[in-house]
């Protein structure tokens, strides 16, 4: 991709102690263990892959149907199907050595202890460079409200995990809140090394023939291009609030979408649903980012991060200084 006279492009990004070869990360739940994509695309071109969230106990997940299509998106309610941490450690973790790129492990839990225990068990697994916390599960101690819905419960999870784990810890925030800023701030103050945002947006589709919700679980998580503007806004707001890196996720399906995320303040880009439609999406997005770096004379991806913020500092890896955003609606 480099022109004859251009400086070498450094597409690496840094998330705590983890260095990814490029900013594209397969989002949790959309990648399985990689054998499937490995048959179609060179997975070593991914910056990282995130594993499906692992819980303490095995879970069969929700009944069928688990998927519905929506305008420019889809709804899923898999229900955290998985083998549980013990089976994972014995049977699946050893295979991680063959993943040709960095691995981010994902933990889901219903109590603070479950997060801490499962995360601790994943710390130090081969190839695993960071641990993401899927804090959108209903918190059993707090009337089923999600951990990520509220600053103090999120902080408790992050602190508990940080005290047990050496790898970078990345809570994954959800968009279903009135104000993401205090929640992101709480994550940073509790020691998070980065935040991922956004998780799927709560949604529902009703089958009008049967007059019943389409999904067996009734509601599900809305993902895909439909939610991209929600993700861009979340990244923008959080980028003005915290200084740790942001992994922007939600509806990215092409290079310009990833640039929107970078310019809004993301350091790396999570890609979920778009993998289903275009297994080459990581490669294409990385190439588009490289082209944009050349166009703007940026020698590292970090120089693109936050570019759309008025107070953008323009230094490599720096994000714009916090600036108040006018938020008048309609």
């Amino acid at each position, binding site marked *: 991709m480099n022109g004859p006279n251009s400086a070498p492009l450094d597409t690496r990004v840094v998330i705590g102690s983890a260095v990814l070869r490029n900013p594209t990360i397969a989002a949790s739940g959309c990648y399985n263990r990689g054998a499937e994509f490995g048959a179609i695309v060179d997975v070593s071109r991914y910056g990282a892959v995130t594993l499906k969230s692992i819980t303490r106990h095995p879970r069969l997940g929700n*009944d*069928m149907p*688990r998927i519905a299509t929506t305008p420019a998106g889809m709804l899923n309610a*898999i229900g955290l199907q998985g083998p549980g941490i013990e089976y994972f450690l014995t049977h699946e973790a050893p295979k991680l050595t063959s993943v040709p790129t960095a691995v981010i492990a994902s933990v889901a839990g219903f109590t603070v202890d479950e997060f801490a225990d499962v995360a601790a068990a994943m710390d130090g697994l081969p190839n695993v460079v960071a641990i993401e916390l899927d804090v959108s599960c209903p918190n059993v101690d707090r009337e089923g409200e999600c951990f990520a819905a509220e600053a103090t419960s999120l902080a408790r999870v992050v602190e508990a995990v940080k005290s047990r784990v050496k790898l970078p810890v990345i809570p994954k925030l959800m968009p279903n809140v009135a104000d993401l800023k205090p929640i992101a701030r709480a994550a940073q103050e509790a020691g998070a090394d980065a935040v991922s945002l956004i998780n799927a947006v709560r949604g529902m589709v009703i089958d009008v023939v049967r007059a019943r919700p389409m999904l067996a679980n009734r509601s599900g998580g809305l993902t895909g291009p439909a939610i991209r503007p929600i993700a861009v806004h979340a990244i923008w707001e959080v980028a003005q609030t915290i200084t740790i890196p942001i992994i922007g996720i939600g509806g990215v399906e092409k290079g310009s979408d990833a640039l929107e995320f970078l310019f809004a303040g993301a350091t790396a880009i999570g890609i979920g649903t778009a993998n289903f*439609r*275009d*297994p080459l999406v990581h490669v294409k997005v990385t190439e588009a980012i490289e082209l944009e770096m050349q166009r703007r004379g940026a020698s590292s991806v970090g120089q693109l991060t936050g570019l759309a913020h008025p107070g953008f500092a323009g230094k490599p890896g720096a994000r714009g200084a916090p600036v108040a955003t006018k938020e008048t609606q309609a």
Partner: protein
Amino acid sequence: MPTTSPQLQLATITSREYRPPGFWCVSIRCPDIARTAGPAQYVALDLPGGFAVRLPLGIFTVKGDDFTVLFQEWGERTTRLAHAAVGDSLTCIGPLGNQFSPPKRSGHAILAGGGLGVAALWLLARDLRAHDVKANIVIGARSADRLVGVRDLARHGFDVEVCTDDGSAGFAGTVVEKVRALRRPDVIYACGPRAMLRALCDHAEREGIDCQISMEETFGCSLGTCWGCVVPVRRGSAQGTSYPRASEEARDYDLARVCADGTVFHAKDVVWV
């Protein structure tokens, strides 16, 4: 039930044929898929138009570099495909899924298709003919006007019997009733609505007949990565993924992905819940 390695392919629409009421047979040029596709395999199509999820469709017929898909104009994606222009390009991932296994020795087979389930039977009939297997093909629909694919399937020279729920064509009754009335085969191959498949599996089990069914679920990824399309299978059966059972878990089965572990399952492995 062999699987081939699916590929991401650029393809072109080469013809469109409307089959009233509401069905289409669209032909797509994609040599690699046309050459390697086996019985019950499918493709995952991506069309321009803002769809987040590929459209899975069975590979109906193949001829030279082209294969066809037979589908009903229904929601957004099938409507888009029905109205794509000849010459338009699209991408396909395929051939996807496992395949019907031919009988071990040349014996007698019944191929049963309900509604658009016929789409899974053309390649099978072609292969059985090549393997010198004798076969009855039974195709059912609600009514005569909704019978599709009969003409295409008849081309292999097998006897095709049609059934309609309302008796407006052929045998008045369901595919299952017709199959029960036929000579006992060595193997039943079936694709169609859930209730039909379940009844056929019951029949096959009672009679001790080998039975392979191609199942359908709403797909997310079509690639085996999202676990959105699972079916319950007997614990320990080859196509399922077995986890330890959680203490509070009442459900006692494994799960298999229709898209990647199927779409073809042995009747004896499927748990109907």
